């Protein structure tokens, strides 16, 4: 288990709160749709803090204006990858943003071993740091 106060990976908007219910997730999706964002489902079993590109579970849902559709995609993804990290991302295409506007975890493995921090002694007192997931040693798909 990770040793931070939550005992788990704290990426995303709501990792310090109790796990969101599907109804609570739906409310967040609706908020994003009201703002004109496009939702996307992504999953990974490599949640390294600098692993930017999780796998896309289908394309961003640009034309979908109904939260139920997003929830359906999420259920499918959860069925396909029950022990992966899954996040919902909302894209804002407006000029001056053109980036992600919301991002939160909606699925995580039961067991989260976290990361090992490797220190390599360098010149003087300088250290070089490498963060490696304890689960990352196994092949993709077999990590959690």
């Amino acid at each position, binding site marked *: 288990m*990770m*040793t*931070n*106060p*939550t005992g788990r*990976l*704290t*990426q995303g*908007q*709501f*990792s*310090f*709160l*109790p796990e969101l219910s599907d109804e*609570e997730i739906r*409310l*967040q999706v609706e*908020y994003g749709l009201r703002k004109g964002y496009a939702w996307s489902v992504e999953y990974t079993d490599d*949640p*390294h*803090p*600098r692993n*930017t590109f999780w796998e896309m579970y289908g394309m961003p849902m640009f034309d979908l204006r109904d939260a139920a559709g997003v929830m359906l995609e999420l259920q499918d993804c959860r069925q396909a990858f029950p022990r992966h990290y899954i996040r919902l*991302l*909302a894209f804002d295409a407006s*000029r*001056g*943003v*053109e*980036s*992600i*506007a*919301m*991002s*939160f975890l909606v699925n995580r493995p039961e067991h989260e071993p*976290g*990361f*090992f*921090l490797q220190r390599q002694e360098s010149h003087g*007192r*300088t*250290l*070089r*740091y490498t*963060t490696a997931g304890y689960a990352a040693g196994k092949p993709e798909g077999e990590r959690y």
Partner: protein
Amino acid sequence: MSADDIHAEATEISGNPSKRYAAGVLKYRQMGYWQPDYRPVDTDVICLFRITPQQGVDPVEAAAAVAGESSTATWTVVWTDRLTACDSYRARAYRVEPVPGTPGQYFAWVAYDLILFEEGSIANMTASLIGNVFSFKPLKAARLEDIRIPVAYVKTFKGPPTGLVVERERLDKFGRPLLGATTKPKLGLSGRNYGRVIYEGLKGGLDFMKDDENINSQPFMHWRDRFLYVMDGVNKASAATGEVKGSYLNVTGATMEDIYERAEFAKELGSVVIMLDLVVGWPAIQSMANWARRHDMVVHMHRAGHGTYTRQKNHGVSFRVMAKWLRLAGVDHLHAGTAVGKLEGDPLTVQGYYHCCRDGYTRQDLPRGLFFDQDWADTRKVMPVASGGIHAGQMHQLVDLFGDDVILQFGGGTIGHPAGIQAGAVANRVALESIVKARNEGRDIRSEGPAILHKAAQFCTPLKQALDTWKDVSFNYASTDTSDYAATPGVA
């Protein structure tokens, strides 16, 4: 003298070269610096000054003097003007109005031709606009209230090296304000003790920790020692949480060479962010913005010293002007006030500063002190920072006032938590996520905020302790810097 008489007297001389350039001393308004018929063009810099003329000095003459002294004028007529296209170089005061409800003070609008300014240089813009005029004897006081910088000039500045959109992408943090804390006590911690505070705060749930403005390289802690221990805390906390974390390493030093040396070391250690104090001055800020662009670095700007000239509303430079200059000069974070914390700031006025940091196009908004439309021409956006005397119990007010694109910094409100620094960080993060979640669900956080926080405190003991500890803390003093405006203004 009536307004018509003043105008007649001014134009009678300024329109007649033989009278205008006769040796001697003329009134500024007679030298062409007062042009009430002038309509600013899109390429003009426009300044709004608040002036307090000395007893017996006519406000139009005072406004003309401001235009003169911030452009070409000297105290006497010089024939060498006639070797130049002097009409271009003369700033034009074109409108003067009494400040509503404030006898003796006047708003003066002054337009400057683009030829007066060096491209991409805040040092030049400031030397022109605030160089001499604030010491000018016929004025008791003067303040630069607001500025409209034309798109043509805006485009000569590179702006923030990173900008808040790209910063979020690098940090992988979206849809909520970022959380930070300034390491306390400000002075006296050894590098090792200092790094402890960094580690605890970040592991507990903050995104950033921060050096304070006066942490440089003093006897108790050499800067290299600080950087090394801080980065150990940052990396350890990142591994413990799986999140990207950072700590603003203050690279402010005595010389540019010192500043570069410190920044290089921060980069070598893998920091995502460096920090500068405003007191380093404009060229140093613009140089470090260039350096940051070359090295993928976020620049955190602490507005150290600004209160000496921004706070009193009859004299100095408004912070909204500073925010505009700093955005162009190139900073990524800027302390812009909390409205609810321990430091000066009327809520509407502070929101005006946030607009200057984050807008794509800032609209005239007189209650917020914004006198001009400002087109930012796609200049990257600055992440405003709310820091100073705020705590978890005010989270709903802060999110309501400032939205998502802000860094909320709780120094005492994290480190002073009765159960320790990690607990303080947890309290702030839980409070923040609860409020953001509730707002997105459609709840009215302004009125329901306290109830939302107390509900969250039922599953989060650190938040309960924070709310109990600081429940009565507020800083309700009258602001010295509020907007003075007429309900139905003319158009600038």
